[in-house]
């Protein structure tokens, strides 16, 4: 792991929630002793270390303390107790374009924002062209920022942040914005950062992104750190925290509803005939279930490579994926006619979900793994044998 780049040491953060704000002098004088606040613990004794060059994900549902933790790491908030050490320069993408002065031109804002992120004038001068190019703003760079579209706005924000040459980059769900092409560009940029040996802290809801990008992930729930583990394991814990044991603080309606209908439990998954298959073989899975009462559900199959890259997530609303699960214990069989992937080891996640993906009844991360052997000489992921023929005639 080498030298730690970010050390979070027993960090706790309490917020005072004022039930009635006494923020004027009059109120303070009239109610000197009365304190009408309740304490909210946003972070409780969170402790982990990120080594230089590592990419660590932070996952958790809304209100789990992710953003508070990031703000503490960036220095926007100060922890109530504990401390955080950051080695080297840090750039944060908490909100793209935060700190833009909309009345000023893009050019002025690059200098203003750059210096807010800790760059000197000369450093901004050097990075200027790269920023303009990355942001794809072209001639609009001299237009006032208030006339920018929201896409142009976030592109400029991202371009500045990634071009400031930070040692540590903190990203808070900003990849959710922008069009697909720009997202891909951002991901490329993040990969380039990783290869340069920079440290990245990455917050996301998106389990696929966490698996695809991160070396490790930290799961937060209700201000507690549930785990600090490999991405696959962390995602499993995260999914469990969503549908499983009720967390300390009760949250939004979707979760509560999800828990109410949840009477499904995946007991286990196995591959009929063993986990070793050949390319193109049929695949038969058996999923053991226990339910309290009969329920109509859809089955989701997620297959990803060990590095986190997702091959497929099946559609649970497809008629062929829907099942009426009887009460009690049952075994669901899943048949794939031919599993057309080349050799490698693949992880399988299995989920039982409600109609239209509204609720996850149960989810089993890394339910089983499949090892595919292949004797041919094709390379890549997908097994595909084209049939080739020839016909003598002119081109067009």
């Amino acid at each position, binding site marked *: 792991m080498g030298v730690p780049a970010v050390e979070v040491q027993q960090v706790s953060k309490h917020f005072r929630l004022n039930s009635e704000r006494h923020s004027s002098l009059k109120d303070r004088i009239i109610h000197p002793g009365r304190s009408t606040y309740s304490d909210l613990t946003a972070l409780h004794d969170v402790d982990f270390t990120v080594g230089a060059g590592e990419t660590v994900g932070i996952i958790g549902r809304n209100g789990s303390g992710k953003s508070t933790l990031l703000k*503490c790491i960036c220095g*926007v908030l100060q922890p109530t107790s504990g401390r955080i050490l*950051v*080695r080297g320069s840090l750039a944060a993408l908490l909100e793209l374009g935060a700190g833009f002065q909309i009345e000023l031109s893009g050019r*002025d804002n690059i200098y203003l924002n750059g210096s807010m992120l800790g760059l000197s004038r000369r450093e901004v001068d050097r990075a200027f062209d790269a920023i303009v190019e990355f942001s794809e703003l072209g001639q609009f760079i001299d237009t006032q920022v208030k006339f920018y579209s929201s896409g142009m706005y976030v592109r400029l924000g991202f371009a500045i942040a990634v071009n400031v040459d930070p*040692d540590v980059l903190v990203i808070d769900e900003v990849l959710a914005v922008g069009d697909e092409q720009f997202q891909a560009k951002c991901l490329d940029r993040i990969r380039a950062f990783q290869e340069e040996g920079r440290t990245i802290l990455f917050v996301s809801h998106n389990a696929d992104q966490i698996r695809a990008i991160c070396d490790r992930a930290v799961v937060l729930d209700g201000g507690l750190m549930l785990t600090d583990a490999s991405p696959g394991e962390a995602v499993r814990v995260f999914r469990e925290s969503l549908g499983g044991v009720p967390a300390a603080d009760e949250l939004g309606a979707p979760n509560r509803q999800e828990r109410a209908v949840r009477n499904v439990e995946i007991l286990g998954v196995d591959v009929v005939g063993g986990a070793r298959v050949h390319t193109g073989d049929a695949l038969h899975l058996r999923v053991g279930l226990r339910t309290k009462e009969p329920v109509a559900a859809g089955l989701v199959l997620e297959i990803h490579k060990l590095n986190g890259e997702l091959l497929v997530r099946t559609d649970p609303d497809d008629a062929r994926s829907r099942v009426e699960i009887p009460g009690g214990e049952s075994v669901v069989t899943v048949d794939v006619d031919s599993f057309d992937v080349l050799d490698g080891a693949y992880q399988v996640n299995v989920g039982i979900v409600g109609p239209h993906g509204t609720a996850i009844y149960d989810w089993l991360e890394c339910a089983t793994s499949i090892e595919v052997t292949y004797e041919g000489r094709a390379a890549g992921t997908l097994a595909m044998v084209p049939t080739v023929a020839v016909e003598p005639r002119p081109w067009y």
Partner: protein
Amino acid sequence: MIETPTASPPGRRPPEQRDVRVVSARSSLTHRFTELWRTRELLLYLTRSDVKVKYKNSALGLLWSMVSPLMQLGIFWLVFGFILKNGYPHFVVFLFAGLIAWNFFSGALNTSTGIIVERAGIVKKVSFPREILALSTVGAQIFYFSMQAVAMAVILVALRSSPDWGVVWLLVPAIAALLVLASGFSVLLSALNVKFRDMRHLIEVAMQLWFWLTPIVYPYEKLAPHLRGLSWLYLANPMTPIVLTFQRVLYPHQAVPSTNYPPNLPKTLPVLPTWSLGTYAELDCIILGAGVLLMVVSVWVFGRLEGNFAEEL
């Protein structure tokens, strides 16, 4: 696809040698001041954007920063010099000498008090020494001060009134004191206003009172005989010696012959105290010292309150 440099970009130090930044509940005072010094360039940018934004999209642009103080000057001159006929020659010069210093001070305090609340967006999202925001309002006032100084020069030339060139150096300690004092108050008030939102309204009222407690539209010597034993209290107003110094340099008359003398009025009018130059300089330096002390206290208070900014905003 983005190009991936194989070697580390120049200027990146190996991890072992990088500076370590600590985020914890408290940060030391020296740490705060070094951080402020380190980010001085940001102060320049924020100041510049403050000034730019204020007059963006207005036809007269930066000229407005001259128009409003000149308007104020005109009104005071109309009331005291013309309607009330107080009899001071070139009274407009006397007025402007005091106003130019006062405008700097009141402008800085009035805008800085609300600045943290106004800029909540950045305060909650970007990490930088927040004092910079308060200081940038002082920076903007330096700019407006220079604009008014140009106007002042034009008036002096037009009226063929000459400052006392021999004592112009007195402006150095006076301006330094003004700058430090305004910065100290700005940092303090901007932080207090986050916790006590009335601060802003309080300051607006207090500045009006403070204005009349400072010898700007009336000469010090007009009031001095009535103060009796309380003149020390009057001089405890840090703005008084600063304003007096500005007047001493730009309106260099201890007493002037009255321009309107009805038989019942004296023919000469007192203006400034008969202090030696040393006294002026000494008073300014005392205020400068007090200002530095205030600045240290303000940054300390700011540091104590800063932890709650993101929550209170």
